[in-house]
């Protein structure tokens, strides 16, 4: 389901409002050989997708201003073109609240790169350079 629609190569979309974590995560993914695109909230992420980008995976924080992770996930599921993009939630929230985002997997904060890479490899087999 991943592809290069809109001219953007296979990539991982990182949606996280904390700038430091967002940047760190993108850099760490790139060091692993993936392409990562950052969005600071759900709305920014939707804009990215609206532009035609189709990431192989979305790493999604839940508690964010402007548009939170749950709302973003709902918007994604409403749109048949976007509904199939795998979403992995990164959260410090409870399992129940995280489950409400109906994600493929949940990564609990604090994150560890080894676990992030395990999940990414599952969804983006061609990503690693």
């Amino acid at each position: 389901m991943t592809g290069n629609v809109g001219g953007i190569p296979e990539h991982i979309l990182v949606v996280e409002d904390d700038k430091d974590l967002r940047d760190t995560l993108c850099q760490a993914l790139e060091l692993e050989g993936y392409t990562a695109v950052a969005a600071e909230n759900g709305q920014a992420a939707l804009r990215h997708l609206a532009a035609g980008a189709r990431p192989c995976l979305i790493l999604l924080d839940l508690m964010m201003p402007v548009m939170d992770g749950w709302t973003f996930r709902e918007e994604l599921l409403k749109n048949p073109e976007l509904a199939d993009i795998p979403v992995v939630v990164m959260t410090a929230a409870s399992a129940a609240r995280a489950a409400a985002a109906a994600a493929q997997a949940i990564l609990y904060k604090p994150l560890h790169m080894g676990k992030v890479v395990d999940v990414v490899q599952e969804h983006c087999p061609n990503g690693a350079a």
Partner: protein
Amino acid sequence: MVPSAREIPRNGSSDGGAVDLFALLIEQVVDYAIFVLDRDGRIASWNPGAQRIKGYASSEIIGQPYAIFFTEEDRAARKPDTILSHVRQHGRFQEEGWRVRQDGTRFWASVVVTALRDRRGELQGFAKITRDLTERRQAEETARLAAAEQAARRQAELDERQMRRSRDQLDLILRSINEGVTVQTQDRKLIFANDAAALLCGFRSAEELLAAPAGQLFARLEIFREDGTPFPVDELPGRLAMRGKPSSAVLRFRVKPTGEERWSFVSGAPVLDASGNVDLAVSVFREFTERRRGEQAWQFLAQASAVLAGSLDYEQTLKQVAELAVPRFADWSAVDVAAADGALVQLAVAHVDPSKQQMAKEWRWPPGPDAAVHQVIRTGQPRLLPDITDAMLEASVTEPEDRAVALRLGPRSAMMVPLTVGAKTIGALSFVTAESGRRYSQQDLILANEIARRASLAIENARAYREAHEAVRTRDNFLAIASHELRTPLSGLSVLISSLARAAASGRLSKLTPEALNERFVKAERQVTQISRLVDRLLDVSRLSTRDLSLERERTDLAEIVRDVISRYEDAAAESGSRIELIASGPVFGWWDRSRLDQVATNLIGNAVKYGGAAPITVSISSGSSGHVRLTVRDGGPGIPLEHQGRIFEQYERATDCENLPGMGLGLWLVRRIVTAHGGTASVDSRPGHGATFSVVLPNGERAAKAPETFTPVAGEGVSST
């Protein structure tokens, strides 16, 4: 041979003149029957007196046995023979007794019979002298009867006097006993009632009750059984007594015009006449209203205690206590507590008459600041107003409308008892009687005080529980938020380190330029700093949750602080496509805690950057005329929903209602704490979709700085510094 009286010559004989005279005597005596009987008791002579007394003529009686004069009973008893035998033996017999005339009528006779003997002593016959004593006897009888009658009359008079005295005494006794007594005739006419009975029926005196028209009694009384169901008039003990049946019942009387209630044990008994028919019905009423009230008061105490012990929601509990008091202990009851500003807040009011509940609400007496309940709260001493009269109400209430309300509520007796928590009187319970006509006594006051004591304990317990619960909840919230908030910067650090570790392990580390590697370490350090700052902030908040905020005031320029904060956020704002504009004419000085005001500005501006989106942020500082300074921060973000605006300054508000937003929900809480400690106010104005404007108004703090000894540190504006 004894000559007959007839044979005695009238004008003398051979015996000379004396004999003649004797014969004449015999012949002419008419008052005595004087005659002679022969030896056998036959009549041998007869004189006119005998004829007059006994009715026989001489010719008819001479030769007849003298037994003819006796009554049948005497003859049957052989009395004539017995008398003669007695005379033969003793020479004489005398008696008074009944004898019979020729016509059969009886007469009362005095009889003397004498033996007549010759010289040799031989019995020749008997002389009998009979006198008719009937008249005398009748006179005697009449006199005796008269005397007896007089005696009887005297006795009757005596008896009547005695009876009247007894009746008066009985009347007095019946009037003075505590039991009510009524006596009714068979046709239901009330012929006796004492005051006790009258009071029970809602009359002021026995006279008033006795004068009342027949139908009026039951028109003004409602009668109930113990269980509260109506008692049929026809089955009242008095009515059953009229039908000959003695009975008794426990009854509750309610006087309709006043609502006054009385409990009574009533017994009825019929009084029968000589022929066994019901003559009167007597009813006895033993009132036990006071005892009943005592029982009910203790029931109230028991129930109230259970309620007070069973709940930790003391406002609800006090309401329940007020409701439980009515009607058993009071006709109306209220709970007032003193608010922080000293004003009274009525938590609850309950009235036995639902139509008066609204009227009783907030009604305090006497009107104004001297209301008994105010006094009780001021002094901590209970008040007992045993007797409140209409005159007292009228005298104390000047407004005609208020007066009408007071008279309609008609309080008769009242008690107010303090609710004391620790050493402080926080409120009062009021118990008032009106409809029931009940008067409170010292005894009742003791009970009311006991209720208040238990209620106070319950309040203390509830407060302690609430505080403990609050403390636990605060701690739990704090821990949850702290751990949640720490996870994001920790994630950054963790990802950074684990990523470098993975790169090192796989030989990919060489891909990174020294500059890139250095950048990562700088970032790691920054994250450690950020985490450590966060920990400090959490500790600060934790301390402020349990302690007062103490300020270190110094002469501070708010504009300078704000400029400094803005400079720290400029990059972040630019990143979201926003910018921060400051409107300030120059330095704005005040006596404030510099680092705390930095926290205020940091939180407000940081929030604006975080939530404001790409729209520009305007920060303005202005000085007011009254020594106040205003700081506003306006963003162009999505705004705050109306329902959240009221609570946005609460602690952990983010964590509860706006759970999907990041942040601890502590920033604005801290802003308000700091601003309030400075004696200022913090507020928000926002229309969803049109951004939000946060405003902080601070007094310049000069008074606080100049007169620190007389100024309470936590005091706000409006507290005088005298």
